[in-house]
């Protein structure tokens, strides 16, 4: 197990390295550079040139990349090219925000989708099952920003919840939860369908197993069959789909951040891409990739732990 984790972490580091090369290359390929982007309409060739010199953009790309890599290897993410702020400072708060929102949404979405999925498996093909199915499918087929607008229309304009998730540093948790409720709910609607469908499918898939028949022949009731006999064995696929969705909650929420004016990493990354602020983009991309790699690793470890065959060797 430890060996697997070590191996996966090593692979993860390789993945991160490749991503940093890829992102760096992509930004190099993007038309325009940070000097042109920041000066925008006001750019003149001379000022752009001066800007580039100041930022060291006149040096060859591979040298700049190696410099950056050297810094990262020593734990220094460098400075934002655009406003010279240390990236660690720039990102710390936003990362906390992103994680908070992801966690918030997950705390609602995961139990909800598990419950819905288990109930749907229990009452499969009932009216309830179909209704939940249609509702969740519809919710994922609406663009995220649209779901957000609808929620704002129904829940914010009546004054129940604030329409923008303005989080101030000093706010207490209750206030923060209240302020970020709508983005969390939007994300919940977006990810629940997938997890719920997977839970349902994973459980139903197992209901044909001989050990389920055995349980029924022992006189076990339907609820206990699903919860005690099917669910523990369906954990691996469920954990994996949860991990995938958690990764999405961390990495894929830029649209929700924009709509609810929530200062998360996604918006930072999009902004930085548009300004060609390569060091910030790199840092954000690495954090996202880290989240993805780690979540997948955790999912694999948990699925392994959920399987007695792999935990208790013969």
């Amino acid at each position, binding site marked *: 197990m430890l060996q697997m984790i070590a191996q996966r972490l090593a692979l993860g580091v390789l993945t991160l390295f490749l991503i940093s090369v890829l992102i760096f290359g992509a930004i190099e390929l993007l038309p325009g550079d940070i000097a042109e982007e*920041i000066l925008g309409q006001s750019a003149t060739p001379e000022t752009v040139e001066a800007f580039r010199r100041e930022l060291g953009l006149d040096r060859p790309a591979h040298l700049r990349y190696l410099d950056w890599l050297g810094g990262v290897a020593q734990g220094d993410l460098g400075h934002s090219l655009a*406003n010279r702020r240390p990236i660690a400072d720039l990102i710390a708060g936003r990362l906390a925000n992103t994680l908070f929102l992801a966690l918030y949404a997950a705390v609602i979405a995961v139990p909800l989708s598990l419950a819905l999925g288990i109930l749907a498996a229990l009452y499969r093909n009932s009216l309830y099952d179909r209704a939940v199915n249609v509702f969740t499918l519809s919710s994922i087929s609406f663009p995220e920003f649209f779901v957000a607008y609808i929620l704002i229309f129904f829940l914010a304009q009546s004054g129940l919840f604030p329409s923008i998730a303005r989080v101030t540093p000093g706010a207490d948790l209750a206030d923060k939860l209240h302020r970020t409720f709508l983005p969390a709910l939007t994300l919940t609607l977006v990810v629940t369908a997938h997890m719920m469908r997977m839970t349902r499918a994973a459980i139903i898939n197992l209901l044909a197993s001989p050990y389920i028949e055995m349980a029924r022949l022992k006189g076990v009731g339907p609820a206990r069959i699903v919860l005690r006999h099917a669910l523990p064995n369906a954990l691996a696929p469920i954990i994996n789909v949860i991990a995938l969705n958690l990764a999405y909650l961390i990495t894929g929420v830029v649209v929700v951040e924009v709509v609810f004016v929530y200062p998360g990493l996604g918006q930072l990354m999009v902004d930085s891409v548009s300004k060609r602020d390569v060091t910030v983009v790199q840092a954000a991309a690495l954090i996202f990739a880290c989240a993805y790699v780690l979540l997948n690793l955790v999912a694999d470890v948990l699925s392994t732990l959920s399987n007695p065959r792999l935990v208790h060797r013969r």
Partner: protein
Amino acid sequence: MTKTTNHSGQLGGISRRRLLQGASALGAAAVVGPLGARVAHAAPKRGGTFRLAMGHGNTSDSYDPATWDNAYVQVFATARHGYLTEIAADGSLVGELAESWEASKDARTWTLKLRSGVRYHSGKAVTAEDVIASLNYHRGEDSKSAAKPIVKGITEMRADGPGVVVVTLEAGNADFPFVLSDYHLPVMPSSGGKIDPTSRDGCGAYVVDSYEPGVRATMKRNPEYWKSGRAHFDAVEMLAIVDPAARQNALVTGEVDAIDRVDLNTVHLLKRARNVEVVTTTGTQHYTFAMDTRAAPFDDNNVRMALKYALDREELVEKILNGYGEVGNDHPIGRSNRYHAASLEQRTYDPDKARHYLKKAGLDKLEVSLSAADAAFTGAVDAAVLYSERAAVAGITVNVVREPNDGYWSNVWMKKPWSAVYWGGRPTEDWMFTTAYAEGAAWNDTFWSHQRFNALLAEARSELDDARRRAMYEEMQALVSNEGGVVVPMFASYVMGLSSKVAHPEQVGANWTLDGFRAIERWWFA
């Protein structure tokens, strides 16, 4: 209470004397032509936290004046910094840190007398050295400042005692004090002849508490602010809300007190909301479709004229601006400018004339590509689509190319032969023409080079006679309109949404959005 007020600011009506010999005239500014019928407010009250949400703001924003490129940082800068001159709500130029100024006869040497006793938030006094360092920051070989072309004309600056700065220009410029009001040019504390561009210190009405670029800034009133009758709010919170729907929702749900850039698609719905006032000002902001006059087929003025007649300007104002604007006349000088050529005949949609010019160019039909993105201006793509629909009637195929917002200014503007462009406008005709129409100007986006125009421009700049100056500028407008490479379909209003709690003076500045960027120090809670 819901109502709309339109303030059409005018930069006219300033006497020559006042221009050359300016003095601060705060409170004495005449109220010029308010079109709205807003009930006059009682005397401004102090207090409250003003929450302002703006449709700009980027995480890469900074304190550095060289890089200010969006309204958020511009309003933010204006709130915390002092400038040498200020454009008053009525469009007149008044002194701010410069108490008065005087020009030499040829308008080449300007002597600025600084207001005494003004201090930065840090407590340091504002000096002539600071003024020189602040302007110098944008000059010189190594300057990366967007304002570099603006201060290019300065050849020398020197302090004449602690309170006087003497500026020498390359050539006479009667409008120089206007230039000093540019948002890039705040006066910042200096040491050793250099300013620290990353410093937040200024001498403006508000002191920065916290700033997270692209997210929010919080400020407190500067207790020692020298202006009277300004800076009514105790504190200010500025939010960047880029998504228009989110911004409007924030206003409607009372999360913020004011927003800029109201989505024109839904402004009619916003107006219905209770406790919301929509304020519009029409100034110099205009949208253009700039053709590269060096490139075929745009090198033929007949083609340009054909295209100018193939566009329904009224429709664009109606559909793109939802009526919040005025039609343009293919030159960049708006009705609020001093020397606007009112006598120039308004160009209208006329497919027959377009065909006629096409024939003159020796063509039956024409196919051209028009690059647009919402980065150029909101609704640019739609405007291009409408253009293409109308042009089709005249036998002109306009292929609309939606360009990415990202990198629009570096990759499309002045690179593609025909593209949509946004201009905030300039307070003076000279400034506008010099920036974008003079031969060899960095932002001459039509690459237009017209001998007569260039000669007139140089001449008018140092011309002291008002009537002759007017004649010259009117001729230049006609030249641009009839021979230039630019289609100017419309002048766009600034449309802002205000909670009814927010009060503002009867006259709202039209030179920029949000009362000429100065809403924070000029407005108050009713």
